[in-house]
């Protein structure tokens, strides 16, 4: 009885999203929103890992490796195919506590620091978040520069002892507060869509695929420390070695879909489907594999774009073992800002592509 049910499910996934939109969009949002509102500066991904584990289907079994990556292995036997999405986000770590109680901080990941200047802050302590503010520059000349110099975090204390009494320690993560916000239509905004959307898509795929249908082992890897050099994925790649036949980084396709961006490349409009990230600054996907993914998506009725963008991806670190990297993303506006915008239809379709690849490729 299971096969017909699964076949029907496959047909349902393949149909136009518009026809099933409310339920599919609602499901994508129900997974994405709690992931967006979980905090995980690179190297401090614990809360995100906990949220991922909570959102997994009941049958899924997890392992956490020494790097902190969360593994979900489905199916048995070689070859191994890996889907990897990263759990970490840009932010800061506490690097010192001053005598006046304020915090020195160091950046984790690449972003414009002006986005954090004079914004609310949260220091993530063992006892929970301690609120504060990222300090504005002391004074602005008549013609200031856009980017601030180094700034600190003021947690509302006036001494080192008072700050330490709040549970604040060197090494803890510091972020802005985050809020998932639904925009018009099927669009949504929040910081750290990169790469919580990737995590969401893996979770949606896991929820929709039937583990019994897989013809080989598929690893769904939720990685750590991508933003500071693909470190978690590198550990996983080394652990798997030559067993891996193919890797799919499920990560942002940084899109030029904005009036501010040059239109020379990365022109993948949001709402037009996921994107095969065939060329970026860390990998080039063999054209035959791109064509194959496109054909599979077309056969399933899943909209799929292809393109080139900037940035690196977790799949690229599997290269030394001869593993082809076929990254697939979704178009994102305003990457690495608090204003990141996605289309929830793209998120749902990305889950469909992953499920199809896991089952059919």
């Amino acid at each position, binding site marked *: 009885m299971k096969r017909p049910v699964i076949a029907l499910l496959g047909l349902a996934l393949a149909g136009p999203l518009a026809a099933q939109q409310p339920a599919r969009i609602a499901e994508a949002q129900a997974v994405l929103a709690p992931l967006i509102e979980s905090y995980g500066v690179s190297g401090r991904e614990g809360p995100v890992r906990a949220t991922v584990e909570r959102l997994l289907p009941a049958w899924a079994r997890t392992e956490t490796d020494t790097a902190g990556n969360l593994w979900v292995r489905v199916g048995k036997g070689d070859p191994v195919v890996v889907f990897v999405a990263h759990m970490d986000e840009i932010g800061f770590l506490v690097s010192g506590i001053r005598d006046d109680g304020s915090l020195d901080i160091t950046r984790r990941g690449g972003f414009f620091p002006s*986005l954090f200047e004079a914004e*609310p802050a949260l220091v993530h302590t063992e006892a929970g978040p301690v609120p504060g503010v990222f300090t*504005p520059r002391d004074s602005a000349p*008549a013609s*200031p520069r*856009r980017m601030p110099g180094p700034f600190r975090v003021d947690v509302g204390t006036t001494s080192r002892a008072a700050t330490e009494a709040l549970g604040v320690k060197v090494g803890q993560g510091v972020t802005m507060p985050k809020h998932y916000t639904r925009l018009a239509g099927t669009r949504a905004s929040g910081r750290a869509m990169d790469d919580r959307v990737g995590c969401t898509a893996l979770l949606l795929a896991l929820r929709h695929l039937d583990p019994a249908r897989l013809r080989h082992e598929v690893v769904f890897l939720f990685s750590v420390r991508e933003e500071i050099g693909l470190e978690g994925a590198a550990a996983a790649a080394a652990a798997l070695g030559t067993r891996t036949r193919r890797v799919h980084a499920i990560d942002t396709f940084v899109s*030029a879909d904005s009036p501010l961006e040059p239109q020379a490349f990365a022109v993948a409009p949001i709402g037009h489907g996921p994107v095969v990230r065939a060329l970026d600054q860390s990998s080039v996907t063999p054209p035959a594999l791109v064509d194959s993914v496109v054909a599979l998506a077309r056969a399933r009725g899943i909209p799929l774009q292809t393109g080139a963008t900037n940035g690196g991806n977790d799949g690229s670190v599997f290269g030394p073992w001869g593993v082809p990297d076929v990254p697939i993303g979704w178009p994102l506006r*305003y990457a690495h800002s608090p*204003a990141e915008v996605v289309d929830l239809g793209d998120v749902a379709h990305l889950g469909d592509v992953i499920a199809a690849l896991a089952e059919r490729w």
Partner: protein
Amino acid sequence: MVSRWKVRLALSLLAAGPAKALPAQTAGASAADLAVRLAGMTAVTGYEQRMVDTLLTLLPGSERDRAGDAVLALGTGVPRRLAACPVDETGYAVGQVRPDGWLTLHRSPVRLRVPGPLFDQQIEGQRVTVFGRRGAVPGVVAIRSIHLTRGRASIPNEPFTSDDAFVDIGAASAREVAALGVGVLSPVALAKRPHRYGSDRLAAPMAGRRAACAALLAAVRRTTAGQGAAPARGTTVVAFVVEQQLEARGLLTVATTRGPFDETWVADDSAGVAAIQAASLPAGPRAALGRVHGWAVATRYSGTAVETVSLGEVEQTSAKIADWLRGEAGQ
């Protein structure tokens, strides 16, 4: 008797930002509570109507004057005193709706207390709220993706200005924008989420001005509740005034329509008090204000999205105002 959940609902609506009229059942709210709630509201210069609606509800007996101020007159005779707090803030209005659904902005006029050169930059890459005809609409202000600047020209060294702003509300066409009730002239401001930190600090855009208004509001509510709406002696007019950034138009309207006054006290953040005391205002209306004094709420990080006040100091300011209202103040 109004059930507790209805009061909670009303408070949450006020705190949410898009101003909804608030019933008077929050009479017992402290100045600190009111400061947090008012800090969650938006009143772009010239578009203060919803904020004033709320204040009218919170101040029984008050009325809207010809300028749009919320005004409450207490007592009769002399001396004639005015206590005022400005409610407006520098913000934006939609300047154009592009065919692709992005909005461009026009900054609200400012003649008093011109913001610094980094003011507009506060909205770049951040959440904003567009106040459309059908309610508040969330949006974000576009910023270049840092990845796409690598190996190419990055963003300029000069600060971001409102001319650089493209607001994305999720609409893909001008028609979708219109369907949300948004159009040219819809007010726009940073999304307001009052942020508490430390033992008693409140951070928000315009936290100082909002805290000052909360101090005045709480003092009036406390005083009128205890004295049957009568000040100690003479006439006291309490006004929450609009368009302060436009050379105090609301304040001067109160002066010319309700004055002349022997003295005027303005509750505002320190910079606002200094600005009104130094302002060059039209002579006749200015004279109707009488001597101008200030209840200044001290701020840190003034003019930023994390302008910070001490809620303890807000309570102290409110107590001072209450003394003045009762005629007990040796101000």
